[in-house]
């Protein structure tokens, strides 16, 4: 009897998680569909029909914007897949590979907005690279008039997105390699005379790819609807679809509002089409390569060369990521740094002193929302996993990916309408609840495997000794899982801290966080302050990871019997 009741409680928790993940997305899409089809009384639109789509498709900037959106989103994903698989093929089995995964974990926590700002600092015609070689090598006594950033084709944006996504996918590959007997297969292939890269491509990659499928689709969806990096690095006239839509939302006319909603739906459909096309492309690629996979050739050929070439881009990508962090940090301590100096003309704490004043509200909001949603996310995930651990069906992983696969802009507009209907828009609570939607999937993915891998005998022993399920969970299972729990917390906080669009929508533009401030300051006059915002934004998730290292160590000291 008692056991049954407990199980029901946990099952309810599991349902709550599923609801939290899917219901707002579904309602959000619905609430976006209504204005897209002409029903938006708050803005004065009460004529159901497809006028908004006609309006959208007859707007010239939409088509130009669609083109750059496709180029940047799909181009970045293709590049990222090539570089990450190529890099893994080149490095797997070398000592570099283990180091790589240690370096990449914090890189994952590096928010898009910070990265874009650092990237811009590096590559602008007046940026660090140009300064490093000017005027002595280039003869530029003033910055060259080159359209490198914000180029009309979106190349700068595409390369920045590709860099960020490639690092993410490498990390996903590292995780997926744990599920594949890669080492044994490669050893066997080596004894048969296969080259290392060829063996990886022929044996490991085909088994790896299915596990990478959902992350790759998430990368596609994110790249196609990116807003924060696109504002900073993307084309301006017109911008990609994300910022263009956001711009229409900011305008006053009812037709601007309905056109914006229609554009959200168009982006939803676009992402669906691209993902379906990608899926079809997978089949084509599988057929095209099947002969090669089985041809028995041990090395050389086009594919390994291409893999080495693509993989060799991983080095520069890591270097750019590191240099962009470094240049952010330098700007944040610069007294002044005029062109063409390679280093600031003096160092100062002043940017941080004034930054802490002007950014205090944003820092408080970011910490509150980030760490709050991370705790809530971990709690909900534990509830759900615990419910599954005793006989209930597992929550299918595609369900978890829903908030990541549906382009944010496609349902956030609707979510925002719902919040404002409740009159909660612009509150920290609304922002935090909206963030939870994106935090929970990541937290869940981090915790799922450690939870499943926990030796069930500990729990059994506790239950046999008469402890209830809750007590067993809290006193036995969770302490054993303290390390993955803390990592999940840190990852969850990092996700929340980096969110831009959900903050702007749910916050109604009135809940500043470090991400929104950094994006705003990126376009501003004072690079030092932008550097402070971006550096603080980079440091905040690292704080979470530091906690994730320190706390398990402290727990371990109190429980010497445990090897954590």
């Amino acid at each position, binding site marked *: 009897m008692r056991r049954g009741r407990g199980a029901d409680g946990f099952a309810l928790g599991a349902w709550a998680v599923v609801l939290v993940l899917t219901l707002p997305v579904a309602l959000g899409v619905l609430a976006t569909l209504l204005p897209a089809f002409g029903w938006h009384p708050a803005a004065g639109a009460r004529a159901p029909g497809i006028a908004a789509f006609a309006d959208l498709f007859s707007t010239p900037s939409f088509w130009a914007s669609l083109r750059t959106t496709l180029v940047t989103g799909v181009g970045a994903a293709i590049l990222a897949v090539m570089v990450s698989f190529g890099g893994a093929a080149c490095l797997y089995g070398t000592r570099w590979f283990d180091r790589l995964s240690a370096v990449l974990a914090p890189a994952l926590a590096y928010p898009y907005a910070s990265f874009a700002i650092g990237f811009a600092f590096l590559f602008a015609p007046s940026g660090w690279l140009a300064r490093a070689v000017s005027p002595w090598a280039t003869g530029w006594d003033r910055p060259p008039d080159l*359209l490198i950033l914000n180029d009309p084709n979106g190349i700068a944006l595409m390369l920045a997105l590709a860099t960020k996504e490639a690092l993410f996918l490498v990390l996903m590959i590292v995780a997926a390699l744990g599920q594949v007997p890669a080492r044994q297969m490669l050893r066997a292939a080596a004894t048969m005379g296969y080259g290392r890269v060829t063996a990886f491509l022929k044996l490991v990659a085909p088994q790896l790819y299915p596990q990478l499928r959902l992350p790759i689709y998430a990368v596609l969806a994110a790249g196609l609807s990116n807003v924060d990096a696109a504002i900073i690095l993307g084309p301006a006239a017109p911008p990609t679809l994300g910022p263009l839509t*956001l711009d229409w939302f900011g305008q006053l006319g009812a037709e601007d509002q309905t056109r914006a909603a229609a554009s959200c739906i168009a982006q939803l459909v676009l992402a669906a089409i691209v993902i379906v096309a990608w899926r079809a492309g997978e089949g084509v690629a599988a057929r095209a390569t099947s002969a090669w996979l089985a041809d028995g050739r041990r090395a050389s050929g086009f594919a390994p060369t291409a893999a080495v070439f693509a993989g060799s881009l991983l080095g520069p990508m890591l270097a750019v990521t590191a240099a962009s962090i470094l240049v952010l940090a330098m700007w944040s301590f610069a007294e002044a740094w005029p062109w063409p100096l390679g280093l600031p003309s003096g160092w100062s704490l002043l940017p941080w002193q004034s930054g802490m*004043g002007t950014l205090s509200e944003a820092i408080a909001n970011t910490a509150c929302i980030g760490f709050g949603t991370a705790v809530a996310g971990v709690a909900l995930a534990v509830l759900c996993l615990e419910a599954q651990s005793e006989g209930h069906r597992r929550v299918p992983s595609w369900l978890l990916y829903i908030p990541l696969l549906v382009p944010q802009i496609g349902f956030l507009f609707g979510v925002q309408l719902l919040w404002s209907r409740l009159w909660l828009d612009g509150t920290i609570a609304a922002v935090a609840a909206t963030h939870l939607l994106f935090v929970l999937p990541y937290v869940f993915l981090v915790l799922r495997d450690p939870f499943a891998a926990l030796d069930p005998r500990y729990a059994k022993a506790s239950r046999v000794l008469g402890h209830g399920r809750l007590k067993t969970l809290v006193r036995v299972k969770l302490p054993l899982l303290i390390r993955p729990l803390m990592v999940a917390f840190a990852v969850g906080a990092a996700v929340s801290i980096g969110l831009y669009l959900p903050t702007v929508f749910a916050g109604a533009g009135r809940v500043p966080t470090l991400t929104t401030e950094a994006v705003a300051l990126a376009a501003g006059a004072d690079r030092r302050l932008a550097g402070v915002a971006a550096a603080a934004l980079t440091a905040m998730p690292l704080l979470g990871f530091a906690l994730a290292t320190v706390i398990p160590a402290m727990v371990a000291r109190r429980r010497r019997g445990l090897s954590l």
Partner: protein
Amino acid sequence: MTGAPVTPGGAGLTRRGVTASLAALPLALSACGRDVPADPAKDAAWADILAAARGQTVTWTAWAGDQKINAFIGWVGAQTAARFGVTVRHAKIDDTAVMVQQMLADKTAGRTRGGRTDLVWINGENFALARENGLLWGPFAERLPGFGLVDAEGKPATVTDFTLPTLGYESPWGIGQLTFFHDSARLPAPPRTTDALLAFAVDNPGRFAYPAPGDFTGTTFVKQVLMAVMTAPRDVLYEPADEAGFDAVTAPLWDALDAFHPHLWRSGRAFPPNFPALRRLLSDREIDLAFAFNPAEAANAVSQGLLPATMRAYVPDDGTIQNAHFVAIPFNASAKAGAMVVADFLLSPEAQLEKANPDVWGDPTVLDVARLTGAQQAAFAALPTASALPPPEDLGRGIAEPHPSWHLGLISAWRERYAA
């Protein structure tokens, strides 16, 4: 910068349905119960308003794109808290249109009380739209004790906002005028008229830029060019624009911009998003000339080490657009008494003096300095001077803002031509 998206209200779902569904979300249940004090009576004495205001928190929604202005708003909050017990919360936004949208949605949804913002920084086309839709509470400006010192005659922009009489629905707090600045060490003789500026850009390819319209400074620059090249009499700009008239009047503008753009920074294929970005291009030496609405912009940047000490500022000989900025109280503001107290404090000689200080902001006063006490006049006279401030006589060359319909028309026509 894009605006935050805000369109509250009416997705055709019932409130109860939505409430029930969202109850699944934790954290959603905070932020209940808003305390809504009564509005001050139309004939309430100032002492009563001060008494009602004590203890109130005024949410002041204001564009937050400039750190020095944000710092000044912070200073105002500290002062009103100490003097009147009124706390100011700066709700930072990057696009005032978004806030008007929000008020409009409140109005549509019938939310006449307990609004989320108490005081808004507003002017121009946003004021026009807000008035047209009855989104502002008032008239209140004439009821502020400090309003008596406003120089409505000498500075007509303080009571006429983009040709529209303010009628007490907004209270002025500062004046801006488009002011150019340049590094005299690198550009000793900048162009002194708009025509000369167009020629300068052609002679110095890639060395001039302006923010993309939509940004108010960029839109103002386009108005300046329009005024310089238009063949129709300038008076038409002070009447509402109709479609046929707009196309005819602006035709010479587009010809001029078509010819001008290929010579701009990045060949006119990219535009800085706002005036702080424009200023950064100047400090990075990517361009030779920049402008802002604040006459003290360059002086302020010099004092912060963002621009070299050889900066100089000026207003071109053919004059530049001048306007005032205002604060208004939304129809459903929760803390109207507190909002009035803040608006009144903004008009006080002390706040105006602080704001006019080029080290703080450098925004010219709306007051008639001649009507102040001797000590106050002396304080204004003793404001720090800086070589990067425009000569005082330059600010006499002000041109009034055209009707707001031109502002909106120019933005959308510009975007259609150059951002599509």
